């Protein structure tokens, strides 16, 4: 990927769509490109140093802070942002649970938490409180004190497992 001196070009696959990017600064983070270039404002920027998790995305299915990914190095990887959570107006079980418990106050941390929690419940569908706290330890929330968020994860986990329970009967 050798480049001339003025710009760098690469393509990004975001939520299944391919985008050609041409940049004049190599240091740009994936978070910056998602927001400022692709208009995907769901991923938030609250620290740019990996501390808050509000920029969380999945890269090839791995949860990461997009502010710590060099955008050019995200090429060839499958990037999923908060915008990929649903393609219509319907809400996921986790989103419903957030509303039910009041886990959204200012809302700044919410997209990052939703990406994190969806990923977490995929691998650990029936977590205990300690596991939930550990899973969200990279997502800072200044408003809720986390109690309602933990509660929302528990509700979503129950809802999901009762949903799956129905499927199991058929086997």
């Amino acid at each position, binding site marked *: 990927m050798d*480049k001339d*001196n003025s710009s760098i070009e690469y393509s990004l696959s975001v939520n299944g769509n391919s985008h050609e990017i041409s940049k004049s600064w190599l*240091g740009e983070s994936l978070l910056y490109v998602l927001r400022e270039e692709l208009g995907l404002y769901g991923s938030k920027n609250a620290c740019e140093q990996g501390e808050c998790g509000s920029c*969380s995305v999945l890269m090839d299915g*791995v949860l990461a802070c997009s502010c*710590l990914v060099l955008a050019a190095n995200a090429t060839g990887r499958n990037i999923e942002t908060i915008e990929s959570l649903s393609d219509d107006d319907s809400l996921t079980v986790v989103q419903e649970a957030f509303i039910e418990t009041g886990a959204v106050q200012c809302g700044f941390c919410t997209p990052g938490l939703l990406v*994190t929690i969806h990923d977490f419940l995929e691998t650990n569908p029936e977590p205990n409180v300690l596991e939930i706290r*550990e899973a969200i*330890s990279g997502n800072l929330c200044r408003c809720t004190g986390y109690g309602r968020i933990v509660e929302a994860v528990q509700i979503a986990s129950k809802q999901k497992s009762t949903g799956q329970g129905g499927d199991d009967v058929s086997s």
Partner: protein
Amino acid sequence: MEFHIASSTEEVCGLLAEDPTREILAGGTDFMVEVNFRHKDPSAVIAIDRVPELKQWRHDGDAVSIGSCVTYREIERGPLSTIVPALAQSARTVGSPQIRNVATIGGNLGTASPAGDMIPVLLALDAKVIIRSIDGSREVSIDELITGVKETSLADNEFIEKIRVPILRGPQEFLKVGPRNAMVISIASLAMVTDLERSAIAIALGSVTAAPSKAREAEAYIQDFLDWNVMTVESSALPNFRRLVGEASSPINDHRSSATYRKHAVGVLGQRALLRIFESRDDG
């Protein structure tokens, strides 16, 4: 401006030989913080995080060879967590799930921060770092690699290929003190490893010295008070042991902690680790 995604170690060697000013990017968790805060303005970068050899670990005689791009996530779970338990304990304390998913062991050594959590464990275990360049490989110890605060002995055309970690039989501990439980850079840390074959104990300190260092006097002192057959320690030796561990540190005052607290804390960690491995006994 140029960006390279390397696919083999040979390619990394070649790219660095061609232009040694090219910078290495692994997980990016230190690199990108520097960039985001404009402390670094990269113009030529080699991403090494897709090089298959660097992402693997394997048994290597009585040691395990861990590729520089192996992540904390991989060290903290799976087979490595039982092969090198203190390394896994240390990996679990790093950052958050998002950080551990991408941050690498090689990046921790490359950054060479006194607070790097891999460093005391690797030093206590006498791990060797295998450094590669177009001219071949060389092997150095952790304290030969890291020479000061964020300083390494790596030449511009060299990179860390892998870390060879001895597999020891015997309990190991890594302990860390920070201002909170999650997502925390350490104020003081300590690794203690034992080798039951040789009745040996090694102690290394983190965040309390500029360059990696062991608590050698404390190691030598405590030997006389250990019973390796039943794994006990004479309780009368503990105050001196704690003091000697503290004295092996040369901490600084900074925004995270005072030097006095660091020296005290690392002594407490030393005693705590010792008592997790050896049961205290009262008689002399």
